[in-house]
């Protein structure tokens, strides 16, 4: 999907909250098309790192290059459109499921016909067809989680960032979601997920980046690029 070697090149990244260091990453490279899993205890900095990689949070210091382009900060929405973050908390807009899934496609200016096709496709794959016209705020936790995942994946951005994506998913819905992620990796999408779900690890065989107290304490040299990637 991308012709640059690295989805991310992170250097001397420091972030702090109220004076306490939340993130301290001297160097991190993630290859384009790689699948990485951020693991570690709660509060170790996974969500902060994902927010910085999504260009939603400006680090205190350090640099983040996204597909070879240095981020100028959180105002850089053109660069931000290369990555989509699916938050841990499934927040849906007060609209129908279909409107929620269409939101990003409209925001980036995809033609109406293409929007309809893509939305119908993802509604079918995520088993959301029957609730497409339902008000999103009235969904159960599991349904809402499926919608936010579909809403993130429908954009087909080169990079997808997921924060504990399967937390609210019931066991029956998880394989469906793993398939969606496999399809994305087959397209060459770079996926970085914070997760405790062993199912994702088994399904995607990602490069594991173990974090503790804001540092990456274990990052094996594997590229994380799955063998079936395009």
């Amino acid at each position, binding site marked *: 999907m991308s012709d640059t070697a690295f989805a991310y090149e992170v250097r001397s990244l420091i972030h702090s909250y109220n004076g306490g260091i939340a993130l301290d990453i001297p160097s991190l490279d993630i290859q384009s098309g790689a699948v990485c899993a951020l693991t570690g205890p709660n509060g170790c900095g996974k969500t902060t790192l994902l*927010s910085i990689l*999504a260009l*939603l949070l400006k680090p205190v210091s350090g640099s983040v290059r996204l597909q070879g382009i240095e981020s100028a900060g*959180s*105002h850089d*929405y053109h660069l*931000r*459109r290369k*990555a*989509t*973050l699916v*938050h841990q*908390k499934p*927040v849906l*807009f*007060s609209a129908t499921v279909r409107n929620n899934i269409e*939101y*990003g496609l409209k*925001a*980036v200016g995809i033609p109406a016909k293409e929007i309809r096709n893509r939305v119908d496709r993802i509604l079918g794959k995520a088993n959301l067809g029957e609730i497409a016209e339902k008000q999103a705020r009235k969904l159960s936790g599991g349904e809402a989680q499926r919608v*936010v995942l579909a*809403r*993130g994946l429908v*954009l087909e951005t080169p990079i997808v960032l997921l924060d504990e994506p399967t937390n609210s998913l019931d066991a029956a819905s998880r394989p469906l979601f793993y398939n969606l992620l496999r399809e994305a990796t087959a397209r060459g999408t770079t996926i970085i997920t914070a997760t405790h779900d062993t199912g994702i690890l088994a399904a995607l065989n990602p490069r594991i980046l173990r974090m503790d107290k804001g540092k990456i304490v274990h990052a094996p040299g594997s590229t994380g690029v799955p063998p079936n990637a395009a």
Partner: protein
Amino acid sequence: MSDLRQAFAEALRLIFSADSDFTAIVFASLQFSISSTILAAALGIPAGIALANARFPFKRFVEDVLNTLLAVPTVVVGLFVYTLIFSQGPLGRLHLLFTPTGVVLGQTLLIAPLVASLSCSAIAAVDPVVRQTALTLGAARFRAARTVAAEARAALLIVCLTAFGRVVGEIGISLLLGGNILGYTRTITTAISLQTSRGEFALGLALGLVLLFIAFGINLGMRLLRTKS
């Protein structure tokens, strides 16, 4: 006691017979209040949204100034606008004094800070993940702000109702800038004041009942909106 009973009976007669003076006064009041609420919403809601989303060094100070303006008495706002629009004032050439436009201008200035301040709070109360979600889905900052505002729409409607409630019951601006001219700038509150000073309570009571009815409607509307949101 019997005088009061008579006044109430006369007040009810004025209401149900749709007395021409009575309807003219109620109509003028509603016209001014609705106009100023719409104008204040057009100015104050975007300002509140911008303030909620902005990050700048003196943001707290600006919020404090806005909150201070909420406490300014209506006569002070009226006096301020009077100095602008009276014949020798900087806007004197526009002949706005003792006109409906003058009253609406003053009322708008009274409630615009209220609308801005409450809108800012309403937007700030929206889960920050909503804005982050909009941004990460590709929205530019303006679209993201619009999305957040849409999530706060019930709260923003409550802001407008609150502003309307404040303005429909004010007297200082209407009296100073309107001049209490019957059929032109006489509002419910200025009419009540005049009738009471004359010792004629019936019309004042009838108008007071209308104000109570409006206040009840506003409260009912706000409760419904809160329940819906």
